[in-house]
């Protein structure tokens, strides 16, 4: 079996049927979806749709089964127990559930072990996506805790030594991305978990850019919480997941409250169900969970080892294309180093927005801007960069198209003169 997927799987994706020449190098932002996912969701809606966890009808039973079965499938995919997966709107929502839950705990609303006090510390890296930064800033502001940050170097990389330097006795949380969406740096999760355990801190893993692209075993990694989004892993919009170790989830206060997550409600107070239901207030994104499960099934059938190997090859080619182009600076680990299947870069003398426009004109979709990582870009001395990122359907032809176009960008904008 050849390692490369790419062209051989493109036929599974309707987007490439309607855009056969599309060079889609923006999977890091959001992925295209295979028919298997689109159909699973649409079929569910057409034939089995009913309210979940409410009422007694057979239809409700079927819908509830589909919903809970989806949870099991997604849990299995990331090496979690089914009670350890909570549905969220997206990864951002999942990360907020943790930070907002800890804020509630700090306000005396239950889950005392999560309460932060004045002087406690939360540690993040300077490379974090805003979704794994601002919620912690807000939590710090509410509780008097201090947000500390381990800095990045001139390539945008943070180090374990740098992390050790900011972690201390008061550290209560270490929140970090498994894979950076800008640099492609892959975090040494086991080491971070060890550092965290050494001081009794909780670990929060932003798995947005790892779960879609490599085998991820959350139990094996030993993290306490994690978050990821379906739309980046061939699944639907509007659905993501919070992972939490079972005993933690049962104690974390639910920030969002309402129907379907309670046991007893009086006008004065409410008691909550155990996890995962305690976090799932209101009518859930039922059909999307079915689509999410179909996406993990599709990826599982390809084999995540194969997906990772494929994207590693495409990623290496992207890096090489960037490094080979004069006047283009690569961000993140250099060619040949351990990194994820993406390449972010800065074109000398051409703003990223203009680079993106030029590439778009050639039918190449990339992402331009700060990629929701302003502090990282500031540390790199820029406000924006361009990112090309791979998915299962990416091919070396895509990379060749990018390489050719990239060679002309500076000329077009007169930046080579």
């Amino acid at each position, binding site marked *: 079996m050849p390692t490369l997927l790419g062209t051989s799987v493109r036929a599974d994706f309707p987007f490439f049927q309607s855009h056969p020449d599309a060079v889609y190098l923006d999977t890091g932002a959001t992925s295209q979806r295979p028919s298997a996912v689109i159909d699973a969701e649409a079929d569910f809606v057409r034939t089995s749709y009913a309210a979940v966890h409410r009422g*007694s009808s*057979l239809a409700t039973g079927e819908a*509830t089964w589909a919903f809970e079965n989806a949870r099991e499938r997604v849990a299995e995919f990331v090496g979690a127990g089914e009670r350890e997966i909570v549905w969220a709107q997206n990864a951002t929502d999942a990360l907020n559930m943790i930070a907002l839950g800890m804020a509630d705990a700090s306000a005396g609303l239950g889950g005392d072990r999560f309460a932060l006090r004045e002087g406690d510390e939360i540690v993040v890296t300077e490379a974090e996506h805003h979704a794994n930064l601002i919620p912690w800033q807000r939590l710090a502001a509410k509780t008097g805790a201090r947000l500390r940050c381990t800095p990045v170097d001139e390539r945008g990389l943070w180090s374990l030594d740098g992390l050790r330097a900011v972690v201390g006795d008061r550290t209560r949380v270490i929140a970090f991305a498994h894979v950076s969406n800008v640099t492609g740096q892959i975090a040494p999760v086991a080491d971070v978990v060890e550092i965290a355990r050494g001081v009794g801190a909780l670990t929060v893993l932003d798995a947005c850019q790892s779960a879609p692209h490599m085998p991820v075993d959350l139990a094996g990694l030993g993290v306490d919480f994690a978050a990821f989004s379906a739309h980046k892993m061939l699944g639907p919009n509007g659905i993501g997941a919070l992972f939490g170790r079972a005993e933690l989830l049962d104690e974390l206060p639910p920030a969002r409250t309402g129907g379907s997550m309670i*046991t*007893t409600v009086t006008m004065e107070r409410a008691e909550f*169900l155990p996890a995962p239901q305690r976090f799932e207030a209101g009518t859930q994104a039922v059909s999307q969970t079915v689509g999410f499960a179909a996406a993990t099934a599709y990826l599982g059938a390809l084999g995540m080892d194969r997906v990772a190997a494929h994207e590693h090859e495409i990623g290496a080619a992207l890096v090489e294309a960037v490094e080979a182009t004069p006047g283009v600076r690569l961000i993140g680990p250099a060619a040949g180093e351990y990194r994820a299947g993406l390449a972010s870069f800065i074109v000398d003398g051409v703003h990223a927005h203009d680079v993106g426009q030029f590439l778009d004109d050639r039918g190449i979709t990339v992402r331009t801007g700060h990629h929701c990582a302003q502090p990282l870009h500031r540390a790199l001395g820029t406000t924006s960069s361009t990112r090309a990122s791979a998915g299962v359907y990416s091919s070396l032809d895509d990379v060749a198209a990018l390489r050719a176009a990239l060679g002309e960008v500076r000329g077009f904008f007169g930046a080579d003169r």
Partner: protein
Amino acid sequence: MSDGLEAMYQELILDHAKTPEGKGDPHAHPFTHHELNPSCGDEITLGITVEDGRISGLAWAGDGCSISMSSASIMSELLTGAERDEALERIGEFREMMRSRGKVEPTEALGDAAAFQNTAKYMMRVKCAMLAWVALEADLKASLAA
């Protein structure tokens, strides 16, 4: 009337629901547990006394649908006087049957509780049938820890 409905609401089940066994004051016993099915409000409080590893006394109070009430009644009949280990085994068998969506046959030891096999096909009712059994399991575990 479909077969499913007749099979679910067998005479046996409806009779137990109307005149349940084991109803009484759970708090007359040392181990009590309250269990609630939040989706429909079914609830039960079940108390037991354990002597020499045997359920020597059992009483429950509760309110709910005919499935949850008859299940509590049939369980009371079956397990009052049973050895603790035997009772835990029955609970395990009952749970396995109820979780199988109707595919696992009841063991002979389950006696009249076999009547709930058809209920197992209705996912939304499984919790109703399990209610009393989950409460008893909690009591038994508490008695083991004591």
